[in-house]
């Protein structure tokens, strides 16, 4: 067996499969998945540290779920290597799966079982002892805030409860690594906050978490975020650092008298090439325009609007949102 050593190994995690060698719980090098001629995952390399909350943001079909399925040993790796807790998922999936948790966007719960029965079901599937299961059941019910609802049918639980129950079931066997694939789709913001509180309390105990998401506010919550597009990892850093380094151009926020007329003028100016506007979008009573450089384009923008008879109140250079940065990073350059 060949071990891939990570440059950033912390030495504080010893995956049982790693034979005592220092290495990050998830290490991926040049991971590739081909379906015929189609490259779903294209030479992706990254590693996740123990206790880290690591997020993946990307459009549908970018390769997020395919990567997770390879890491779980459910899908054959075409090229490159992956180690989860030191195990090679292609050859040691079973041993690895005993120490890995997985929660899919579908919340794979049995609706006709109660919350408690669902936990028991998963515990038994993972081979927990009768005693261990009892203890774990109580822990999970407390962790997920399900006290008082443990005997309710899962079908009758609302989205937020179901989600926390699904997470509880995914970690019933105390895994060291947890994969969460769009875990909060369709859950309200308050429940989502609670859920993220749980994720961080798990990470604090040393669990390593890889989470994929569509929500920008969730991506903001990850310690590091990878942008996935067309099977490739196009950027990887902390959310703050991504905003500082990966945005092409600057965002200007324009406040003016007739927002709709201003929008029409700016769209026309972009169309004709009069101004190099990367994005023009209505945000309520304001317009956001992405320009190559804030300072040198404030004047021309104001001039254009003034020539259309639109009174400009303010043009401000504002910080990009993570979504701005994401859109800017995955857009093909030099069209």
């Amino acid at each position, binding site marked *: 067996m060949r071990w891939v050593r990570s440059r950033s190994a912390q030495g504080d995690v010893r995956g049982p499969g790693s034979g005592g060698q220092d290495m990050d719980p998830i290490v991926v090098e040049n991971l590739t998945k081909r379906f015929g001629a189609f490259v779903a995952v294209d030479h992706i390399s990254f590693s996740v540290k123990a206790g880290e909350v690591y997020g993946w943001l990307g459009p549908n079909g970018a390769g997020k779920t395919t990567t997770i399925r390879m890491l779980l040993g459910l899908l054959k790796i075409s090229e490159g290597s992956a180690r989860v807790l030191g195990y090679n998922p292609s050859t040691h999936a079973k041993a690895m799966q005993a120490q890995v948790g997985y929660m899919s966007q579908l919340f794979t719960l049995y609706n006709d079982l109660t919350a408690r029965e669902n936990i028991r079901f998963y515990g038994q599937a993972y081979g927990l002892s009768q005693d261990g299961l009892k203890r774990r059941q109580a822990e999970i019910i407390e962790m997920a805030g399900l006290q008082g609802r443990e005997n309710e049918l899962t079908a009758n639980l609302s989205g937020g409860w179901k989600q926390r129950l699904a997470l509880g079931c995914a970690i019933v066997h105390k895994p060291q690594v947890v994969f969460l694939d769009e875990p909060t789709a369709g859950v309200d913001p308050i429940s989502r906050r609670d859920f993220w509180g749980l994720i961080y309390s798990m*990470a604090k105990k040393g669990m390593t978490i890889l989470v994929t998401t569509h929500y920008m506010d969730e991506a903001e919550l990850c310690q590091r975020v990878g942008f996935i597009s067309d099977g490739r990892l196009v950027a990887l850093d902390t959310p703050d650092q991504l905003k500082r380094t990966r945005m092409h151009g600057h965002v200007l926020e324009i406040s003016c008298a007739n927002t709709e007329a201003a929008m029409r003028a700016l769209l026309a100016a972009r169309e004709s090439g009069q101004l190099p506007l990367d994005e023009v979008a209505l945000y309520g*009573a304001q317009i956001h325009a992405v320009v190559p450089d804030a300072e040198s384009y404030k004047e021309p923008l104001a001039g254009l609007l003034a020539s259309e008879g639109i009174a400009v109140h303010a043009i401000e250079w504002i910080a990009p949102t993570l979504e701005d940065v994401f859109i800017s990073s995955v857009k093909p350059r030099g069209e």
Partner: protein
Amino acid sequence: MATTDEVTISTRGLVKRFKTRTGAVLAVNDVKLKVLRGETFGLIGPDGAGKTTMTRVILGLLTRTAGESSILGYDSMHDTHKIRERVGYIAQQFALPGDLTVLENMHFFANVQGVSRAEQRRRIPDLLEFAGLSNFTGRLGGQLSGGMKKKLALACSLVHEPSVVMLDEPTLGVDPVSRREFWNLLGKLRAEKGLTIFVCTPYMDEAERCNYVGLMHQGKLITTASPGEIKKMVPGRLLEFTPSNFVPAWRLVEKMEGVLEVQTYGAMLHVFVDDVDRRRTEIETALAAQRMTCQGMREIEPRMEEAFISLIRKQRAQ
């Protein structure tokens, strides 16, 4: 009357009650709402808040229990035909016929809406161009990506040239790139056609795209205001930091003087305070006394999400 001309969607004392096995549920509870012509109005709220029910009552797809509701001056209950003619609607779980092509879907909806052949020939190419679907006219609906399906649904909802569109969570499950594209289309409709857009969404950041936002919670419209005004409704100013010991720090800070509200944010705490400089030092000192550190203490601007959570909590406390 110029003033009523401007009001496109209006409700007063609107109530929708459902009977269930265990009793009655007030899905819409005494809602007063006004959306002006050309406005983009976002109805924001968690699942189960009553957004879909309210939209359907206004459209006349569900009967109201009490109160008034109208679109373009047409009563939801009595003028449903007029509403159908002038309003476009995308339901939340709306699925286009997957075995029809993009073009066939467009013709199908145009026929349902009674659009003449000649008008169809004029409008459909424009709408497909607008939705970026001109190169996919022959593709089956079922084989479109999630984002393209939503764009096709939007194009179909516009085929009878409505002056109002009501969209129920149109970007649910759609990825960030497609979501951006979809909102850019709505922006064009607002800027170029002056369409009134009523959109339900659970995404807080989409509220920023709207002129006015209604926050809905448990059937009640908690507040209606512009996104900027809503963000100003949070108490005091906002400090963000990562404490070394989360739960004890949270409990400690919550009880401190000048702390108006505490929200959790992953491993961070969001603390609303009356005086940023003063409380910042006090929090640092108090945590240090308990041998706790706080990393990355800084003041941040509250976003829609923080405001929303704060407002709902206040509502729940009442």
